[in-house]
């Protein structure tokens, strides 16, 4: 058990052989108690709430599930979450790969600054992201006159909800793909080019297959984050029931209106979707790595 603890192969204090057993016992005690504390902390902090919500969702009963999902509001909320998530995934994946290619392959001055900008969304509170969107497109905003003149509604409508979700999800694909591109180098791509492949062919036949697991993992993280986004979407959406209400906004309203059971049911569904998605990708990724290794 304690084979991996920092123990020298020979007892250090050879002058006192009697203490060997004592040292071993003490080490086992330390080992056991540290492991115990770590497990208890993780269980109390992370597992107990998970058990709590599953209990609450089961206690609500099957008919509550049926009732919840037969509401048009709930269905529309999930539909809206799906649309926002899908758009966000497409935009952040495609443009994320472009940014990653630039960061990894194009040593231009100011790359460090660009890299910092990529990480910026991670440091910004979602509420502030929503606020920025309101400031740009809302009353008195820079772009409001133009969009008004063209009859396009941004705030309190789908476009602003997609925009803020994209902002929040920008880093995930880039941070997964860029390091890998740097590690891979350009040898294979050069070979393909030498053999007469065009830039596009090289990208789709060589580069993309090489980065696909990192890309998929980044997409999974993006999806999980987009599904769960609340702060920014709350600010820009106006929470119009059946119109600009996402699944997370529905949960918030359900608790506000005292329909706790429905809140628990929708929240459990979201949690299950996110966990399944990430663990699925994790398994696929391990399989892919093993295949590559063999």
């Amino acid at each position, binding site marked *: 058990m304690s084979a991996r*603890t920092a123990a020298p192969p020979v007892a250090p204090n050879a002058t006192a052989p009697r203490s060997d057993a004592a040292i071993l016992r003490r080490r086992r005690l330390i080992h056991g108690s540290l492991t115990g504390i770590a497990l208890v902390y993780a269980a109390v902090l992370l597992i107990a709430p998970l058990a709590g919500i599953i209990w609450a969702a089961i206690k609500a009963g099957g008919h509550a599930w049926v009732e919840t999902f037969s509401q048009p509001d709930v269905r529309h909320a999930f539909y809206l979450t799906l649309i926002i998530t899908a758009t966000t995934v497409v935009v952040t994946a495609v443009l994320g790969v472009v940014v990653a290619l*630039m960061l990894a392959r194009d040593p231009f001055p100011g790359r460090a600054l*660009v890299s910092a900008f990529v990480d910026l969304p991670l440091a910004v509170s979602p509420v502030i992201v929503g606020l920025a969107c309101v400031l740009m497109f809302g009353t008195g905003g820079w772009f409001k006159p133009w969009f008004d003149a063209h009859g396009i509604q941004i705030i309190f409508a789908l476009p602003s909800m997609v925009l803020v979700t994209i902002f929040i999800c920008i880093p995930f694909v880039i941070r997964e793909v860029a390091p890998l591109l740097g590690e891979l180098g350009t040898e294979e791509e050069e070979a393909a080019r030498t053999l007469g492949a065009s830039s596009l062919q090289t990208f789709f036949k060589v580069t993309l297959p090489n980065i696909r697991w990192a890309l998929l993992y980044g997409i999974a993280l993006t999806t999980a984050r987009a599904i*769960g986004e*609340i702060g920014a979407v709350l600010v820009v959406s106006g929470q119009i029931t059946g119109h600009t209400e996402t699944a997370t906004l529905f949960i918030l309203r359900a608790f506000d209106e005292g329909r706790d059971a429905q809140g628990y049911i929708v*929240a459990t569904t979201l949690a299950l979707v996110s966990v399944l998605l990430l663990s699925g990708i994790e398994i696929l990724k391990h399989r892919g790595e093993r295949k590559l290794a063999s």
Partner: protein
Amino acid sequence: MATRTGSLDAPPRPPLPRLDPGAGGGAAPRPRRRPPWGRWGLRATALLYLAVMVALPIVAVLTRGFGNGFGALKDAFAAPGAWKAVELTLVLAALTAVINGVFGTLIAYVLVRYRFPGRAALSTIVDIPFAIPTLVTGVMLRALYGPASPVGSFLERHGVHVIFAPAGILLALLFVTLPLVVRTVQPVMLELDRSEEEAAHVLGAGRIRTARSVVLPHLRPPIAAGMLLVFARAIGEFGAVVIVSGNIIGKTLTAPVFIFGLISQFKPEQAAAVASLLFGLSFVLVLVTERLVARRPAKEPEE
């Protein structure tokens, strides 16, 4: 090996090389004579994307918040509970950083150094907060500690208030930020040279002395980086907090929820001013963190 795990929401994987082509050979000059249309196109697309999607919104917040000097900021802090909200947020974020700094490091240590039944499970459990939507975290805590659950009513009977109290906010922040410390410290611990510890041991240093003078100096930067990340994330957390805090002005109202309140009251300038403060603080913390994480490889060259 440099890692990029030192940022908020770091991916739940151990070490990643930096966004730096450097050793990867990506920067090798390509002997071609074609005009670099592709490169310029790539550059323009990438920079435009980041400028429009990231830089512009930030500029919008800063200019609106401080367009009329510090007037908006003063007005915002004249509101009842404004200072309290900022104070509560900073105190809770600091507490979260300290508690998760200790337990996150402990979990990383146990994961790296010990083999025990349940180790794989612990490693998976630590990543749960990355997958669970933050609002759902709040809902989970409400389900467990709310008055409707046996645990919640038991605690309530004994005078412990979790939901709609600072304790609930603290639990939510602890939940959301735990992986940040574990995944920042773990890769460094994996790379530690065991023979240094053994040498100290052979030379007669006790376990505590070995830990203090051999192990800790290596671990200080990643632990500090992890804690700063936790702090930065905790300052801005909204989803997990909003549903457990009850948002009682002067008692459980946090700064992000306060900003949200200002927006709902159609005071965008004041909201932008407070947001700029909050944002500035967390951005500085993230920059410091990147320094802390990046400094490490210079001291320990790879084998």
